[in-house]
Every structure is written in structure tokens, then in C-alpha cells.
């Protein structure tokens, strides 16, 4: 479908923020290469899934979203403080 469902959009935004905070994901705001961004995000999702022992798919599935929504410590898992 040309337009992603609202819920899905919210999930992606939430996941981006999560990956920025805890996995050093940086979205290139003005990038012309959206595919590159998606690939970077998938890599970060894989990193996160691997850290938590989830099935590593690179996809934002329910299991991964559930883990991202758990209450947690604000210290990054992979990246260090900047």
C-alpha cells in the first residue's frame, strides 16, 4: 500500500528514537537515499535483537517492538555517552 498504516508509522518513529538513544542510530534527515537509511536501521535492529537474544531478523516485528517498549535504564546498550 502506498501509505503505511498510522500505527505502523508510529512504531517506526518509536523504533527510530529507541535506536538513536540506545544503539547509535543516526537518521540522515535530508538524505536522498532513503534505502540507505532503511538498511542502516535494519542493521541497528539486528544489533538490538542480538543483544537481547531475540530472533535476529532486522525487521520491526512484534517481539522486537515489545522489547523496545519495556521499561528500562536510559544508558545506551551499545553506543557510549556523547
Amino acid at each position: 500500500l502506498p501509505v503505511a498504516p498510522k500505527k505502523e508509522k508510529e512504531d517506526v518513529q518509536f523504533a527510530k528514537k529507541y535506536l538513536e538513544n540506545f544503539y547509535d542510530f543516526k537518521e540522515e534527515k535530508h538524505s536522498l537515499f532513503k534505502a540507505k537509511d532503511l538498511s542502516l536501521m535494519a542493521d541497528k535492529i539486528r544489533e538490538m535483537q542480538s543483544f537481547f537474544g531475540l530472533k535476529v531478523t532486522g525487521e520491526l516485528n512484534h517481539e522486537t517492538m515489545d522489547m523496545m517498549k519495556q521499561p528500562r535504564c536510559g544508558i545506551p546498550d551499545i553506543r557510549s555517552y556523547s
Partner: protein
Amino acid sequence: TFPHSPTWQKEDVTYRILNYTPDMLQADVEEAIARAFQLWSSVTPLKFTRVYGGQADIMISFAAGFHGDFYSFDGPGGTLAHAYPPSSGIGGDAHFDEDENWTKFTTYGGYNLFLVAAHELGHSLGLSHSNVFGALMYPIYMARDTRDYQLHQDDIDGIQALYGPPRESSTLPTKPFPTQEPTETIPAEAPTQMSPREEPTETTPFKPPQRPEDCDPHLTFDAITTLRGETLFFKDSYVWRKSPYFSEIEHDTIFSFWPSLIAGFDAAYEVDKRDRVLFFKDDQYWAVSGYNIEPGFPKPIHSLGFPTSVRKIDAAVHDQNTKRTYFFVGHKYWSFNENTHSMERGYPRKIAADFPGIGYPIDAALQKNGYFYFFRGSNQYEVDIKRKKLIRIMKSNSWFNC
């Protein structure tokens, strides 16, 4: 550890509580923080001294939203707290999100301050996040019982990689920490405040009791239950999982299935028609369905109809045919009707009167294939359910293909 492994280059580290959350009594906040420090001091040479003014190495505060660093808090849920690795200035400081509901209890209605503080202070000392599920430094909050809380071996390995093990002369056995003293140095070094039992002794880092071998002839169990066709044997924090689908016995921990349950069950049984397993420990019980703990638990065992003189259950077993559950306490047993949710009249009765040949107390009980199996010490007694007749006596671990 963090990049470059920052640590405190001294063993005497100071902390200061800058403010308090209104969610808890100040004394409870102080107690939670002090207990959290004690966890780490019990496995390292570090000593933590509370100061009441000026700059401390570790400054502890509660704040909401933006609070002066580059990591604003995010309202209820999400991020609960954060802390900085050892260094000067903000280094070592621990911040707790005031938008959370902080509690000293282990409930689902708030976050246990002791657990979160212990985790954050791990960061303050130089530990980063662990990917070992069950470790204190795992990044996700997991409600769990904090009585007799002990560090995971992964946490101990991490902190001792930075600071080494405790010095013999400065270590103490685990003891309740002081809550009333105006200042506290942890570990406490005031022999006059100690009872003889609490005198300094040589201690080694905590290691949970090792899981006994499957075929150890002296193997005993705390509790046994079926669960969705499988059989689970419990001993301390360990679970032996026997599945009809696999020949191997799987070894797990209670924590890996139900992180918030307390290890060391007294009794357990399954009501298979309701997909429900009940676990008993001391005077409380929990109901679980698969991995989920049902809301509203734990409940007192007296809500099942036991008199207040009953403080704990030795064993429990459910008879699928009669829908009755038998509870064993000392030399007596009760019969509970699962349909009416009430204790049956005429009970308790003496175990010896109805189950001749079975001694007491019973450690654990299991219903399987038309038989009851009563476990006592390293033996189990196979009893025909209908005739209540002892068929044979076997070793407790006969289920493990020994």
C-alpha cells in the same frame, strides 16, 4: 564495562542523596540506596560513605523531564533512570525519573527503587549493560522479589574485573544494613553494633548453590508439577524439565520462566483444565498461566481456607478425575474442591490414615498416569489414586533416566 573501563581510583567512594521522591518515605529511599550500595560493596573492596553536604563522588537525585544533562527523562514508563560512569563532575551521578512511581515493594504498580538503584550504581562504578538475561545490569526492568537479593554471577564477574574481590578484613557476611544511623559506611565497620553472628568473617563472592547432578542418589525436590503435558521438578532456583516430546532432561531456572517469582517453592500443582499452575512459598501463593503470572497474586494461603496456624504447605497434588487438590502439611492433609473453590468438610485428616506407608512431611507430590507420586527425601512413593494403595518405592530421580 564502558569504553576505556573507567573506575574509581580509590576504595572509599562517597555518595550524597540530593533530594527525595515524594512517592516514598525518606527513610525508605535511604534504605533502598544503602542496600543497593551494599550489594556492590559485598563483592568488592569498595566502601561507600554517605555525606550530607558538598560534592560527593556519586550524587543521587530525582528529576523529571529535562534536568540539566543531555538525556532528558520521558515521563512515565520508558526510561526509568540513568547514571554516569566514574569520572569527575557528573561522573558517577545517578538520576531517577521522578515521573515514575517509586516503591519499596515488588509490585506491578510501581518500580522498586532498590532494584533500579542497584542497577544504576553499577553504572556509577563502571559497569555497562549486560546482555545476560537475569543479570542486574541487564537493561530491562524486571520486577522480582528483593528479599535476600543477590547479585548474578555475571554482575560479580564484571565488577570484580574492575575492582577485584573484597579484602578479607573488610568483608562482611550479608546482613541487614543499618537504617537509623545518621551516617552509614557500608560495609559497616562498627563491631559494637554487631551481634556475634554478624562478626566479620572471610567471605567469598556469592555463588548460588550448584544444581545437583540428575543422577545424584541423594537428590531431593522442593516441589513438582505438571505443566502443559511436561513435568517440572523444582529444587532451590533450579528446574528440571521433562517433556514427553524430548528424551533429554532440560535444565532451567525458575527465574528464566517467571522472573518475579521467588525461588525455593514449597509446593506446586497444575489444574490442567484451566491451564493454571499454582506455586506456594511460605504463606503466599501465585497462579501462573504459561509464562504469565495472573494479576492479583500473590495471595495468602489462608484465602484457600487454611487455618491461620498453617504457615506453609509441604506439598500439593491435583486429582484431575475428582477435581480435588490435596494439600499436605506436616502429618495431615486437606482436600480442596476446585469446582467450589472451598476446602472439603472432614479435613484435615492424617496422612497415615489414608495413605499408609507414606511418611511425613512430604516434600513434593505429583499426579501422573493414574498414580500419585509422593516425594520424601531421596525416595518417592507410587500410590494408586483410586485405592490409595502404595504400589512401590523408587528413588526420587527415577524420572531422569538414571
